[in-house]
């Protein structure tokens, strides 16, 4: 990475608004609302549903890091999500690791995988980048279908939630919820930190004009690769957490439709916004949950929403709200 990047990007525009911990005023208010919702929600809604929502929120935030801030449309993020899910499940079930270590192992492997795939994929842009990531993800899907440890169509079943740090039992849904909520908040803040660091400024510069960023002396490929690895690792965290919540890791997690789903979540919520992916994940997961009785119609409704989003409000839910209120969210 270019050594002089830190000094030059720290002079990037800080914005006229005053900031609290790197959040604008509006973002800080939204953050407080989010914390309040995280604390209150489990007393009113089904904790398992909320945990699923949070896992997908992490996944969508990780995805947004790449598509929203670097402008790279990966169409193979299910590979990292699914690999994180399988590895975490395997670590917890077969190796008997504690949940936090299982998720960590899953995330690290997803990161390594992201490093290899990213190294290949970032050489191209636009549709070619999307196609390369999709092709690599399909290879991972096939690997998961055939590898003996994944259990093929059965998946890895009866994954124990285990004891946090070897002490706190996570078998109760409420305890598990707080664990997942902490992971979510940690990932959320980490992504926010990354985006608002000098490193993040360079990423945004790449998104706006890569050639110009190169001409300013940044090795853009290195930045893109690091962003890709970070995104893949966080997707792995999401997958690993999900497999522990439900006690099962299946091919659904690595299927290409999962890559499409996370894209949909991010678009619906708002590309390149801090809170957008979370709202998008909430909308899509809630829809899948509460409309489940309508069977195949859920996908039709999802498709209609996608079209409506792309045609009518391209900024996504949060993006449109931010635009209306003239704030950054």
């Amino acid at each position, binding site marked *: 990475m270019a050594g002089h990047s830190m000094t030059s990007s720290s002079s990037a525009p800080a914005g006229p608004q005053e900031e609290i911990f790197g959040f604008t005023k509006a973002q800080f208010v939204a953050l407080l609302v989010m914390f309040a919702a995280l604390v209150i929600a489990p007393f009113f809604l*089904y904790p*398992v*549903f909320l945990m*699923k929502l949070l896992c997908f929120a992490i996944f969508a935030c990780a995805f947004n890091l790449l598509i929203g801030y670097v402008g790279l449309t990966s169409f193979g993020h299910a590979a990292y999500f699914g690999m994180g899910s399988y590895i975490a499940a395997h670590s917890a079930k077969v190796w008997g690791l504690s949940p936090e270590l299982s998720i960590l192992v899953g995330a690290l492997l997803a990161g390594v995988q992201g490093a290899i795939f990213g190294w290949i994929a970032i050489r191209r842009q636009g549709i070619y980048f999307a196609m390369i990531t999709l092709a690599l993800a399909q290879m991972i899907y096939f690997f998961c*279908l055939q590898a003996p440890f994944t259990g*093929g*169509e*059965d*998946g890895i*079943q*009866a994954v124990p939630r285990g004891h946090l740090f070897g002490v706190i039992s996570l078998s109760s*849904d409420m305890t598990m919820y707080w664990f997942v909520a902490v992971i979510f908040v940690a990932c959320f803040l980490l992504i926010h930190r990354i985006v608002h660091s000098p490193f993040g400024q360079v990423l945004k510069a790449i998104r706006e004009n890569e050639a110009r960023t190169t001409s300013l002396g940044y090795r853009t490929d290195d930045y893109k690769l690091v962003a890709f690895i970070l995104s893949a690792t966080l997707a792995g965290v999401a997958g690993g957490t999900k497999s522990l919540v*439900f*006690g*099962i890791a*299946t091919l*659904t*997690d690595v299927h290409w439709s999962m890559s499409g789903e996370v894209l949909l979540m991010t678009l619906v919520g708002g590309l390149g916004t801090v809170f957008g992916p979370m709202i998008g994940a909430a909308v899509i997961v809630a829809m899948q949950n509460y409309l*489940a*009785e309508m*069977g*195949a119609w859920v996908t039709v409704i999802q498709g209609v929403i996608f079209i409506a989003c792309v045609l009518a409000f391209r900024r996504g839910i949060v993006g449109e709200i931010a635009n209306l209120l003239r704030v950054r969210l």
Partner: protein
Amino acid sequence: MSLSRRDILAGSAGAAAFGALPYRSAKAQAANTIRIGVLNDMSGMYRDISGMSSVVCARAAVQEFAGRGFNVEVLSADHQNRADVGVNIARQWIDREGVDVLLDVTTSSVALAVSDICREKNKVHINCSAATSDLTGARCNANTVHWTYDTWMCAKSTGGAMVRAGGDSWFFITADYAFGHALERDTSNFIRAAGGRVLGQVRTPFPGTTDFSSFLVQAQASRAKVIGLANAGADTTNCVKQAAEFGITRRGIKIASLLMFINDVHGLGLQTAQGLVLTETFYWDLNDATRRFTNRVRSAMAPNMPAMTHAGTYAGALHYLKTVADMGVAAAKADGAAAVARMKAIPTEDDCFGKGTIRADGRKLHPAYLFEVKTPAESRGPWDYYKLLQTTPGEEAFRPLAEGACPLVRS
């Protein structure tokens, strides 16, 4: 309009009382209500052997228990043959909807996962249409009853009949998940024990495979005398149809449909299906009792007809409700393992399977029937499809208790 403080107080007290009332009665009612969740494939390749027809059969059992001092509600959902979806629904049903028993649960991968959930939450799992013999074997638990059939039974009955008829070299086309693997494993054991040989196998992706031509050609190239279909539902019918189109059966290679239901035969038509040998534990036209049962449900499930899985769903629900009536609603709701233990203690009796018992490992015992599919000339009309070849009594039809490696039995 002005509101005095008294008005507000009276109003809010009234609202509170009004709000509390239906809630309390709902609670009281819930304590006296058994909730049955029928979880199966409503839209995919197994919908004909489970689907809404299973819900109809569960309701038929519930009807017989009307006015016994407790209420029974039947819920249903589609697990799309995906284990993660099934686990999700099962958890939500048990945590949020107060479901006491999960019934039917097609598809072995989903069944094994749901079985684990029911053990974890101490609820009852009566499996009526998944096949894997692991449910009462290595992965058995005290909360599960496996009712209708299993892979070991199919392997012994159908596989054994094929070997006796001279089919001593086999090639398997196997659905690539728990059920296919178990069926292939159990059948291979019988073939080897009888001195036959397994020349190879090919695993087909599940669900979603519709074109089996390359697999059939591979099977044909192996020069096996018998192509064993370790799959079910639409997979089996597609294989049989495509084997006929490729002329494989005309060349003298036998197709062994190790698991086949009457609905599959109906879908294939007698012209294609004639002569196939298959095993079921229930046939609607078997005796007076089975015809009686069929008459009760067939109008509600038309145009479908009850397969053994539907009969199992009815009989399983009936026996569970009988147990609930015997041990009391509160006790049955509180402890799923105790309810299953009680189910094992009481002998079963119903129109579909006659008299039977449930073994310590959760295996329901009843006779298995080897049928041959009639020729179009022999059949008197739609759904008159089977000729009975052989009856295996319940004690011999299923895997011996000691061979299953069920942890419940070892102790």
